[in-house]
């Protein structure tokens, strides 16, 4: 069991000694029970930090923001940024390090183990609360404890945990400077890829019917892309600006620029966008599940990424975010990669 005071003390200490430029963690938001990202720069702010089952966010996203901000301002990093990272978040940081997005010494990883549980799934929780609004959430062993206007409600975590957490076998941040909580690597609450396997058990026709419905719903708000630490491209293929414009660029060149995906939220364009994203995340997605959670229309985006993760594991023996020095999935190969699909 993690003692929140330990996290707060660490943050306070680091900021007081100037060992970190900032501490990125979680604090209580202004709307109900949900935590929100917190950016601390003064030691006295450390007591704002919280650690509970609503700490969904993959905060490595803000390391990416920070790096972009520094590059834009033409500043150098200086002291590292300390960041609170769960198992999946720490793997994201490893991928960013693999890709040399920033250097290891630029980040101080305060690892937090999810131990036997994980984060709550708001949709599952709503089903258990019958309309009541939870005001707070807390870890308690294998349970989550929620407070509502009607009193305290204790639920087994497994019933309201996010699918990705149920399927997660590595809830401990292997890459860390400091870690809190018990290392329960190897735990198994549900089989890995359980949700994916359930979906894949359908025939091709059913799978298409389901995906067609999901793709039709997408409103192209790009929350999935925006919330993803791996979607750090300065220019994304779906943006209206997808090629560099200089003073020498002619109107003709602007007019005939390649438009891979139209802006219209039509099924064909939504498919091309979401599939391109899944390909771009193959071998990089660490299943933090933020795209899936952020989606306002509940497109099961995670399944696409899971499919790539599963193929990578089974066919290429590849684990995303396993080690900083490791290869990238699509920029490496093995002699015995499957090839019997090629005629």
């Amino acid at each position, binding site marked *: 069991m993690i003692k929140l005071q330990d996290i707060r003390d660490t943050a306070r200490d680091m900021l007081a000694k100037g060992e970190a430029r900032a501490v990125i963690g979680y604090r209580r938001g202004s709307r109900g029970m949900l935590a929100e990202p917190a950016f601390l720069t003064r030691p006295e702010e450390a007591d704002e930090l919280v650690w509970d089952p609503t700490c969904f966010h993959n905060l490595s996203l803000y390391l990416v923001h920070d790096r972009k901000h520094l590059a834009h301002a033409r500043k150098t990093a200086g002291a590292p940024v300390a960041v609170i990272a769960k198992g999946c978040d720490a793997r994201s940081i490893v991928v960013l390090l693999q890709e040399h997005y920033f250097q290891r010494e630029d980040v101080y990883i305060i690892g937090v183990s999810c131990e036997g549980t994980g984060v709550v799934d708001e949709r599952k929780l709503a089903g258990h609360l019958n309309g009541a609004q939870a005001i707070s959430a807390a870890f308690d062993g294998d349970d989550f404890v929620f407070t509502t206007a009607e009193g305290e409600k204790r639920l087994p975590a497994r019933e309201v945990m996010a699918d990705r957490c149920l399927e997660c076998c590595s809830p401990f941040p292997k890459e860390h400077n400091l870690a809190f909580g018990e290392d329960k690597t190897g735990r198994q609450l549900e089989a890995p890829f359980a949700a994916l396997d359930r979906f*894949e058990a359908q025939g*091709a*026709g*059913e*799978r*298409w*019917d*389901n*995906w*067609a419905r999901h793709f039709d719903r997408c409103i192209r708000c790009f929350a999935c892309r925006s919330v993803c630490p791996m979607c750090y491209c300065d220019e994304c*293929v779906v943006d209206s600006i997808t090629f560099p414009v200089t003073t020498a660029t002619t109107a003709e060149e602007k007019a005939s620029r390649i438009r*891979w*995906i*139209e802006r219209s939220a*039509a*099924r*064909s*364009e939504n*498919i*091309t966008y979401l*599939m*391109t994203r*899944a*390909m771009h995340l*193959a071998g990089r997605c660490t299943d933090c599940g933020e795209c899936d959670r952020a989606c306002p229309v509940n497109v099961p985006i995670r399944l*696409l990424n899971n*499919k*790539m993760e599963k*193929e*990578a594991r089974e*066919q*290429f023996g590849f684990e995303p975010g396993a080690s900083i020095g490791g290869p990238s*999935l*699509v*920029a490496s*190969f093995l*002699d015995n*990669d*499957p*090839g019997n*699909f*090629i*005629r």
Partner: protein
Amino acid sequence: MSEQQDYEPRVVAFLCKWCSSAGSDLAGVSRIQYPANATPITVPCTGAISPMYILSAFNKGADGVLVSGCHIGDCHYLEGNYLARRKMYLIMKLLEFIGVEQNRFRMSWVSAAEGAKFAQVITDFVGDLQQLGPQDKLKRAENK
């Protein structure tokens, strides 16, 4: 499928300039008969093919997409086709996953000397696509 007798599938074929593209030329100069349904797009190496190209071809109305390059070990850039093998495997699986018919995407190794094989690959592919009928899953609606 009598009403589909007249249906001519449109194939976008990404061909490596060092082998399959030359293989298609050889098929031509050897006067081998094969269906004229493929629009060839020559690429410097199969390793240079972004999965985006495959998706985009379907998006713009292709009924089938073919990727063809050098046999393993023969890559002009030594390892481009190894990389392509991984990437194309992944995009193939992803297409299959969302329910696109498996036979709409094909990959083959065709060397510059294999004109007959190239003709066979196209013939087989077009035959399979004829069975499937038009592709409208990934196609832009207004182009239908």
